[in-house]
C-alpha cells in the first residue's frame, strides 16, 4: 500500500515538470569551429568520390577483384622464391636494423635528454636542445633516410643514420620529460650533501626514471621495426622489407606477400607481448 502511494506521487512529480528541451552543449567558439570543420570534411569527402577519375571502372567488379586478391593473399599464402629459413633470417635482419638504430638512438638520447631537462641543465641550453630536437622530429624518418642517402647512397648505411637520427629526437623528448618529473627536492638533498652533477644523475635521476625510459625505448623499438620494414622496401636497406618489395613489384606474387605479412605480424605481436611483460615486471 505504502509503496504504491509513493510510486504515484513520484509519477506525479515527473508529470508536473514543464516539458522543455534541455540542451547539454552550449554554443561557443570551439563547438562552432569543431562542427564547421566536421561539416567541411564530410562535404569534401563526398565531393572527392564524385570527382575521382574512375576510368570507367565498374565499382562492383573492382571490389570483387580486390577481395579475390585479398583472399589469395591471406588465405592461400605460400613461399615460392625462398624458404622458411630464409624468411626467418630476413626478419632477423630487419629486427637487427631496428635494434641497432634504437640502441644508438637511446645512448645518444640519454646524454641530450639530460641537457634538455630543465631541472638538470640551464634554461637556455634546455630550450636550444628541445628546439633542435622538435625540428628533427617534425621531419618524418623516411625523409631523413632519403636525405642521408644523398651522402651515403641509398642502402643500409643511410637507413641506419636516418633512423638513428629520428630515434634520438624522439627519445630525447621522452627521456627529458621523465627526468623533469623527478622531485626537485631529491636533487636538492643530494646537492646539499656535497654530491656532484654526475653522481646525482646516476644515483637519483636515472634510477628514478628507468622504468619510463625502458618503456619509451621499447615503444621506439616497435616503431623502428615498422620503419625498418618500409626502409627495406623504399631505401634498399635489406631485410624482409626488401623481399616484400621484390615479391610485390618484381614477381607480382600476391601469395608470397601474404606469407611475408604474416611473418611481420607474428613478430609485431611477439614484440607487443614482450613489451607488456617487461612493463609488468618493472613496476
Amino acid at each position, binding site marked *: 500500500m505504502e509503496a504504491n502511494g509513493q510510486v504515484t506521487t513520484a509519477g506525479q512529480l515527473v508529470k508536473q515538470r514543464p516539458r522543455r528541451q534541455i540542451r547539454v552543449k552550449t554554443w561557443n567558439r570551439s563547438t562552432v569551429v569543431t562542427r564547421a570543420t566536421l561539416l567541411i570534411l564530410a562535404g569534401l569527402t563526398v565531393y572527392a568520390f564524385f570527382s575521382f577519375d574512375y576510368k570507367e571502372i565498374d565499382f562492383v567488379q573492382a571490389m570483387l577483384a580486390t577481395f579475390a586478391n585479398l583472399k589469395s593473399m591471406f588465405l592461400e599464402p605460400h613461399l615460392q622464391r625462398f624458404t622458411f629459413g630464409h624468411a626467418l633470417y630476413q626478419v632477423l635482419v630487419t629486427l637487427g636494423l631496428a635494434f641497432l638504430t634504437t640502441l644508438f638512438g637511446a645512448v645518444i638520447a640519454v646524454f641530450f635528454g639530460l641537457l634538455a631537462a630543465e631541472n638538470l641543465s640551464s634554461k637556455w641550453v634546455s630550450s636550444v636542445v628541445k628546439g633542435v630536437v622538435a625540428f628533427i622530429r617534425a621531419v618524418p624518418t623516411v625523409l631523413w633516410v632519403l636525405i642521408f642517402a644523398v651522402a651515403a647512397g641509398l642502402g643500409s648505411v643511410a637507413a641506419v643514420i636516418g633512423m638513428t637520427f629520428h630515434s634520438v629526437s624522439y627519445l630525447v623528448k621522452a627521456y627529458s620529460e621523465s627526468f623533469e618529473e623527478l*622531485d626537485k*627536492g*631529491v636533487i*636538492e*638533498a*643530494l*646537492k*646539499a*650533501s*656535497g*654530491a*656532484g652533477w*654526475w*653522481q*646525482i*644523475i*646516476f*644515483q*637519483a635521476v636515472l*634510477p*628514478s626514471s*628507468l622504468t619510463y625510459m625502458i618503456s619509451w625505448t621499447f615503444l621506439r623499438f616497435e616503431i623502428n621495426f615498422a620503419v625498418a620494414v618500409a626502409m627495406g622496401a623504399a631505401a634498399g636497406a635489406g631485410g624482409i622489407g626488401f623481399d616484400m618489395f621484390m615479391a610485390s613489384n618484381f614477381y607480382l606474387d600476391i601469395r608470397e606477400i601474404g606469407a611475408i605479412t604474416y611473418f611481420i605480424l607474428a613478430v609485431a605481436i611477439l614484440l607487443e607481448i614482450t613489451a607488456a611483460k617487461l612493463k609488468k615486471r618493472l613496476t
Partner: protein
Amino acid sequence: MTALLEVQSLSKQFLGSEGKALTDVNFSVSEGEFVSIIGPSGAGKSTLLRCINRMIDASSGEITFDDRNVTKLKKKELKMVRTKIGMIFQHYNLVDRLSVIENTLHGNLGKKSAIAGVLGLYSQEEKEQALRILSVLGLESLIYKRADQLSGGQKQRVGIARALIQNPRMLLCDEPIASLDPNSAKVIMDHLRDISTSMGITVLVNLHQVDVALKYSDKIIGINSGQVVFNGSPAAITKEDIQRIYGSEAEDLIFDLGGIHAS
C-alpha cells in the same frame, strides 16, 4: 663553547621580487647547541637555512662555519663544507625506487670520487657504518625495503640516517615533523635531540610548533618578515615575544606559555 656558526648582517633579496626575504640577520650558534627557528609562514625560515649551506646565495652579509667564510668559497671548497652539514627535509626527499640502505649511503657521495659515486661503489666500512646508524634509528629490519614503501616517520628516519652518515658537524632541518603524526613527530624530535646531546652535533631546526620548539631547544630564534625579533633561551620567552614573532593574533593561538614552562 666556541661559535660553530656565525651569521652576520645577512640579507637576501630574490631576483625579481620587491622586498627582502631576509633583512640584516645576525646570530651565532655554539658547538652542540640545539636551536629552533620559529616564525609565521613566509617569514624566511627556509631561506635562512638554505643560505647557510649556500643552496641559496645570500645577497649580502657573512656566514662563518667552522672558521670559514662560507659566502666566499669556491665550488670545490663549498662541496667540502657541505659534506660537513647534513640536511633534513619536510618531504624527506629520498630516492623512492632505491632501498633504505642505498638512500642512507647517498650521504657519502660528496666525499667520494666522481666515478665511485656514479657507480655506487661503497667500502665495507661505509656499509658497516650505515648499518650501525640504521640500527640506532630502529630501521635495521627494513634496510632492503624500497623507500616508497615506508611510512612517513620511517622515511624521515632514513633522512636522518643519510645526514648522519656524512659525519656532520651540523644538521639543518627544514620542518622535519610538519608532515608527521604526533607520535612519529616525537620519535623524530627525540632522535634529533639525542644526536645533539650525545654526539655533540649542532642542530638547527625550522619549526611550526612553538610548544615543541620550547620543549626541545637550547635556544630559540624568532623570525618575522625576514628579521630576527627574538633570540634567547626558551625559558626567557614571554607572551610579548610570541606576539612579536607571530603578530598580534597570537593571543588566540592555543599555546599556553605557563603550562609549557611548567612541564
